[in-house]
């Protein structure tokens, strides 16, 4: 790798082309969405198999929780507000939360663009990097949801006994909103982590640690309500709960009324916070950025 040049004013390169007619501005992101969608749908067979594989460990999870509830003699009662059926429904629903909030290869990809110098394509073309990544990721998510719809539908049909039916329309609307916001929190969080690449070049190690911790504190292993205080309360203040726990708890009607609105507001604020953080880190990072590579 040879350092080609340090852009005198990288911000100009990024900001200047963003003047054209608004309709064109959004049309190009729509085009990115369409191309990325077509790309992802090519490997739908792979997708389908991977989804099926991901479900199988659910069998042992169901059996383990059954043993836990039986051991506690609470098959007919509750544990921290969760009956046995709620617990399984919750763990199934965290799969849906993660479907929206997980962002494989996003932060690593940004760090790679910085390291290898390929980031300059965003600086030279009339395109905003975060806008491009967002359109690309939405396409990936749409493709994932479409291809995994059948296996998920099958899974939820088989496990329908763990649910009390669909919640009321207002709860469903709040659930849908919480999932969209979960996507945004997950996306901008990972972009922010990726931006650390401007300073450290390699973020894979950091990502490994973040993802491992996230697995527990986002509530993918168990509902945060089961943790003793102050942990449960503390973790509910952090953004990670929105990536798994919160949407699932909303669907199950565990959070209602004013707290539902407060938590949704919290989710929105975290999404905005990470959006601003990602943008600020990007701008600061570009000042340090030297375009490496040929």
């Amino acid at each position, binding site marked *: 790798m040879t350092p080609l040049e340090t852009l005198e004013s990288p911000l100009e390169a990024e900001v200047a082309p963003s003047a054209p007619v608004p309709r064109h501005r959004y049309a190009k992101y729509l085009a990115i969405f369409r191309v990325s969608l077509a790309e992802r749908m090519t490997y739908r067979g*792979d997708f389908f198999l991977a989804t099926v594989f991901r479900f199988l460990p659910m069998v042992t999870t169901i059996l383990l929780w059954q043993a836990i509830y039986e051991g506690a003699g609470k098959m007919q009662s509750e544990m921290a507000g969760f009956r046995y059926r709620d617990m399984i429904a919750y763990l199934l629903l965290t799969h849906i939360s993660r479907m929206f909030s997980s962002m494989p290869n996003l932060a690593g990809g940004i760090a790679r663009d910085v390291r290898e110098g390929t980031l300059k394509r965003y600086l030279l073309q009339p395109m905003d990097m975060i806008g491009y990544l967002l359109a690309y990721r939405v396409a990936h998510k749409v493709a994932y949801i479409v291809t995994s719809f059948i296996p998920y539908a099958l899974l939820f049909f088989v496990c329908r006994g763990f649910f009390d039916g669909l919640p009321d329309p207002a709860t469903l609307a709040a659930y849908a909103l919480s999932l969209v916001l979960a996507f945004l929190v997950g996306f901008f969080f990972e972009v922010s982590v990726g931006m650390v690449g401007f300073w450290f070049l390699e973020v894979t190690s950091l990502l*490994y640690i973040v993802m*491992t911790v996230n697995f527990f504190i986002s509530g993918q292993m168990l509902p945060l309500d089961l943790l003793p205080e102050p942990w449960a309360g503390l973790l509910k203040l952090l953004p990670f709960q929105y990536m798994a726990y919160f949407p699932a708890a909303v669907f199950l009607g565990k959070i209602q009324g004013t707290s539902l609105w407060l938590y949704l507001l919290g989710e929105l604020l975290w999404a905005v916070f990470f959006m601003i953080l990602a943008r600020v880190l990007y701008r600061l990072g570009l000042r340090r950025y030297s375009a490496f590579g040929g």
Partner: protein
Amino acid sequence: MGILSGIARYLRLLGGLAVYTLNRELAFRGNFLVKVSVEVIWLAILIAFYRVVFARTSTVAGWDEPQYLFFVGCFFALNGLIEMLFLENCNEFAELVRTGDLDGLLLKPIDEQFLITCRRIDWGTAPNVLMGSAVMGIALANAGWQPDLLRIATFLVTFVCGTAIAYGFMLMLTSISVWMVRNQSLMEMWWLFSSLARYPKEIFSGPWAEPLGAFFTYCVPILVVVNVPANAMVRVLDGPMVALTIAATVLLLWASRRFFHYALRSYRSASS
């Protein structure tokens, strides 16, 4: 005499490979430390999970807290040992087939199964064996366990058998790469395998789960891998299950080697 000198030769080779991979690993100390930290965090999460669970119940599938903690430690150590010795090697096999680099390994005057499945040691997962052992030690102390030579001997034998059974399954899965060329599902299958092995087999109770548990104990003996050594140490010393585990080990090692050689015969070199 011939056999003994053969064993000594392979042990020497293994030692050489271990030193070589350790030197490679230590060239990237930062990466090594991160790998180890991730494993430490993962163990902490597992323990936190069981602390939360046992705060609300005194037994899970007939296992009390110290017994279950021993099971978790046993799983962590055994899984760590397999990942350390074989997982990375088996995972690279598909790539060797795809690129044709397998030719070079097949030409070497060493047993191909040994060279392919043991040539690299993933030292990043080696501390898992120690951490798992420490958890087992703590669990034994918590349980007020009295030293018992027979139990220790049975544990050690069945722990080695469990590792060998897991290795046999992994070798079979790896061999499929010869036909599939791309075998990205190996890691997924391994995850499935470990998700079955990580729980006590007593959780398989109920009308549909019992036959499933029996299937994974007697037909595809994944459930014996951690269950039998952990049971032998802290619960009942079940003679027939120990015998079954030893028999399954011998059978699987033999069958997986046959299958591996059968797969190699279908290998068509891809290199120029």
